[in-house]
């Protein structure tokens, strides 16, 4: 199956991170084109393209931008969410490391559309070397007049600051990210108000995922109709799929939304190691409910996966073979969310902690007959009531591991 490389079109070039390489591939043409139009026209273009956010929830980008109040006296901030903490996800890593100017141009277009003059890239602390690559690319762009004052003589001012997180998964949640960028503990805020009304330093703020922003140069340059013609209705454009786990050729691959999952596993990623049988697939990063092999015949887009009872999430596809132990994976999942819960709200803090305890004792062989029911009860009764979605990100997948593979848990208890 042939990849359709729009976002990844530069990454295999020599010196792909350099400005001249980016420009020779048509880079910054979209910015020029955008600046010749009105900001509202850009919002309209993005609306027509059907672009949905790539950060996890699939929220339409233009709708989010339209929440920003017009002609407000406060500054508007744009934040690129480069926290990439969802286990199984490594797409923003590759985009920023190999093609940093793509993100910069995307931010310029978004910044222009929402009347912002200051952007931030909030990058996870572990990506220190990538943060340096971004700093260098920003310096290059500034030197060439793509960032700073009066960009390309259009009167538009915009600059970007790179902010390094310091090792916290919850800081990928947009309001926790904003708290962290304000120099505080990364604890999610109660919503509303949403960031568009009151975000960074109390100002209207747009938070978009790196990949979402990276789609913008293509949309502006080639036109929204072109983008909308890729994929399936309501799920337009290409998507970066991160395939990892027990496959022969793990990697980040770009395909139109709606590509069949089984094609990704067997054709693109070369099938399962040692020709083992498929047991299950986690389709969209660790927070998305697992699909058993029987359920894996699905299309990879927001709506098809929702209909299958799971989510596209960050498109981190984790492939599990017959050798994988689901109770062990459920335990690792519980440990992860218990470690990363910010501790602020009770259902998430207590729920994830209790799940970890129960799964630990089942895994160690000292589980009680009633423990499976206890786990299901925690997952169902605490669903939807934590302050931010981190709680559900633990409860939903763990519920599905236990429900779909309860035999494996029972075997450990007996």
């Amino acid at each position, binding site marked *: 199956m042939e990849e359709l490389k729009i976002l990844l079109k530069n990454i295999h070039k020599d010196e792909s991170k350099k400005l001249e390489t980016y420009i020779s591939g048509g880079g910054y043409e979209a910015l020029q084109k955008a600046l010749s139009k009105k900001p509202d026209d850009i919002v309209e273009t993005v609306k027509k393209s059907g672009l949905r956010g790539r950060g996890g929830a699939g929220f339409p980008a233009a709708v989010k931008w339209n929440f920003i109040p017009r002609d407000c006296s406060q500054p508007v901030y744009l934040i690129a969410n480069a926290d990439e903490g969802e*286990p199984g*996800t490594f797409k923003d890593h590759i985009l920023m490391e190999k093609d940093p100017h793509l993100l910069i141009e995307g931010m310029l277009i978004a910044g222009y559309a929402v009347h912002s003059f200051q952007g931030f890239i909030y990058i996870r602390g572990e990506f220190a070397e990538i943060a340096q690559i971004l700093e260098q690319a920003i310096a290059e762009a500034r030197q060439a007049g793509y960032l700073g004052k009066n960009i390309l003589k259009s009167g538009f001012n915009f600059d970007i600051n790179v902010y390094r997180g*310091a090792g916290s998964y919850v800081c990928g949640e947009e309001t926790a990210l904003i708290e962290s960028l304000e120099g505080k503990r990364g604890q999610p805020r109660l919503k509303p108000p949403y960031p568009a009304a009151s975000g960074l330093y109390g100002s209207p703020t747009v938070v978009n995922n790196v990949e979402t922003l990276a789609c913008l140069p293509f949309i502006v340059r080639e036109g929204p109709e072109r983008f909308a013609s890729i994929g399936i209705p309501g799920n337009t454009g290409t998507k970066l799929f991160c395939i990892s786990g*027990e496959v022969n050729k793990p990697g980040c691959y770009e395909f139109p939304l709606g590509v069949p999952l089984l094609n990704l596993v067997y054709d693109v990623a070369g099938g399962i190691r040692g020709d083992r049988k498929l047991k299950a697939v986690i389709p969209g990063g660790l927070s998305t409910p697992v699909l058993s092999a029987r359920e894996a015949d699905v299309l990879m887009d927001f709506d098809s996966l929702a209909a299958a009872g799971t989510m596209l999430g960050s498109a981190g596809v984790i492939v599990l073979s017959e050798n994988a132990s689901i109770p062990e994976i459920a335990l*690792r999942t519980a440990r992860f969310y218990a470690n990363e819960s910010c501790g602020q709200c009770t259902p998430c803090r207590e729920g994830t902690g209790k799940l970890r305890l129960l799964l630990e004792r089942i895994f160690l062989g000292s589980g009680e007959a009633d423990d499976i029911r206890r786990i299901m009860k925690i997952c169902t009764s605490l669903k939807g009531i934590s302050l931010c979605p981190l709680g559900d990100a633990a409860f939903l997948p763990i519920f599905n591991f236990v429900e779909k593979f309860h035999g494996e848990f029972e075997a450990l208890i007996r």
Partner: protein
Amino acid sequence: MLSIKQKDDIRKKAKEFPGHRSVSLPALYIAQSGKGYIDRKDIEEIAGILSISYAELYGIASFYNLIHRKPIGKFHIQVCTNISCSLLGAEHLLTRLEKKLGIREGGATADGIFSLESVECLGSCDKAPVMMINEKFHEALTEKKLSRILASLKEKAE
């Protein structure tokens, strides 16, 4: 204690942000860039520069995994043990490291050269198993590769 240069760097960095409070994380990074961790005195001094309370800054420092509040080794080894890495043998590599270094996960060698920690997904799962040593990624690890890396670090430490 912060050096004069560290204090200057923090004040300079603070000017980059519309809200000067934002500099608290960069300041903690600057403070730990010398000895690898921050102590009580460092937190006190930064809190003074930023005009916030010691307790508040301590709360911030303790929230983030990459801000170290106790000494770490000259080479701080972080092994990813999340799903994709553990499916490809991360746990086994961690055990090998514990044996080779003679320490347990979470500990440090007596000479202060190595410390070892298991961490969550490092965002490089296609190249599993993965670890970080200080700020550098080491990917697609095998036992052989691990031995080679350790040997070269031991050489560097001498």
